[in-house]
């Protein structure tokens, strides 16, 4: 690891000042479970690390009826995994939190770090995408709110500017009640990146089983975690049947854009998308009281 300076601001305005002073030569550190690996492997060599962990008010989970779930960017994955609020309000996020890394990694890794790392495989991202989450970004000049879907520009690239800090994740309350499911396929059961990750949010009319809301997000099959809008419209407004689920899964495998790498060939990942999307929809439909 190349040497660097370390600053741990006590409040966010100090952090903005440090960002202003060191700009491109600096890097923010939250949990550091990914950043330290990149520093050790020489992928990154900032002159200054700005540690956000000493700033109070950047972590914690709260729920408000009107605005939904507020998750501080520095909230650890373990805190999400053990939060009753998350389990009740966003079971799909709870599910994904338990699948990220190891216990040791989850104790340190943060939700804000997982998002800002913008890895195609980031486990918390697909659930947050199907929950229509937004991120709150602050700078010396004020605050902006961005739909999470628009936050990613490419693998490792986001719309975050050098003078900005992502401070909070906002999960708005769903307009209609529904169920979310996240399925991760890894090469092994734990401690691995997703070969393919699939998150769905499904809301069915309790009597007619017409699909009132359906959102689908995929991990590891595009430069960034993606919403699969073209597959979503297949279910929207229609009665959910086996064959409709098949068409939806088919649309999902066509709309994604995986690459062949050590995790699998492109065709294999597409097949996985098809199988897992279908499985995730069926699981969610089941939670909604529908037998398929």
């Amino acid at each position, binding site marked *: 690891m190349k040497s660097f300076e*370390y600053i*741990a601001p006590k409040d966010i305005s100090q952090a903005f000042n440090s960002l202003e002073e060191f700009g491109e030569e600096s890097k923010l550190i939250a949990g550091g479970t990914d950043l*330290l690996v990149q520093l050790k492997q020489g992928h990154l060599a900032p002159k200054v*690390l700005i*540690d956000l962990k000493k700033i109070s008010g950047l972590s914690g989970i709260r729920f408000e009826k009107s605005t939904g779930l507020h998750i501080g960017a520095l909230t650890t994955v373990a805190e999400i995994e053990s939060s009753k609020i998350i389990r009740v309000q966003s079971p799909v996020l709870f599910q994904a939190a338990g699948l990220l890394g190891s*216990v*040791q*990694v989850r104790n340190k890794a943060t939700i804000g770090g997982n998002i800002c790392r913008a890895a195609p495989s980031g486990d918390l991202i697909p659930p947050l995408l199907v929950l229509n989450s937004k991120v709150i970004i602050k700078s010396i000049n004020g605050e902006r709110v961005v739909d999470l879907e628009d936050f990613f520009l490419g693998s490792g690239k986001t719309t975050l500017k050098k003078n900005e800090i992502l401070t909070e994740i906002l999960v708005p309350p769903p307009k209609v009640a529904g169920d979310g499911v996240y399925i991760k396929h890894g090469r092994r059961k734990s401690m691995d990146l997703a070969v393919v990750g699939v998150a769905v949010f499904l809301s069915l009319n309790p009597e007619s089983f017409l699909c009132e809301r359906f959102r689908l997000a995929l991990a590891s099959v595009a430069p960034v975690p993606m919403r699969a809008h073209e597959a979503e419209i297949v279910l929207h407004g229609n009665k959910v049947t086996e064959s409709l689920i098949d068409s939806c899964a088919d649309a999902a495998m066509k709309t994604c854009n995986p690459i062949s790498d050590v995790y699998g060939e492109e065709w294999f990942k597409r097949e996985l998308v098809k199988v897992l999307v279908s499985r995730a929809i069926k699981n969610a439909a089941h939670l909604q009281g529908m037998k398929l």
Partner: protein
Amino acid sequence: MKHQVRLTVNGVSHELLVEPRVTLLDAIRELIGLTGTKKGCDTGDCGACTVILNGKSVNACLCLAVEADGGEVLTIEGLRTDSGPDLIQNAFIEHGAIQCGFCTPGMILSAKALLENNLDVDLDESQVTAAISGNLCRCTGYEKIIQAIMSLVQRSSIK
């Protein structure tokens, strides 16, 4: 520039002068001299460097010493009691859960974190397996390790 870092390791307070790039793992091993905490992959995959920092298990290789400033660290050396090895260490010995021994300190600390954070929970084998999923045993002695931890789960549920 070197930073002054205060760490309480196994109840003993240490004042260290470290460069920011020094990991908690290297500080424990090289500066404090406690080599029970092992360096395996150094990238957070193997869990050999697992320590308990402020009550939570972490990979000491993925933590800078400066980040841990003011923290309380428990390493494998801190488990020993006046009368010898502690309950978990004894269970590992009794069940033959130690082969080459390299993963053992990390395994035992992951087990300790699991047991202490779930005092009132009836843990099953799948939870034990999940809890040590971040600790690799290259001797693949997992069965005995799981048996050792399960023996403590059962013992604590009798209490």
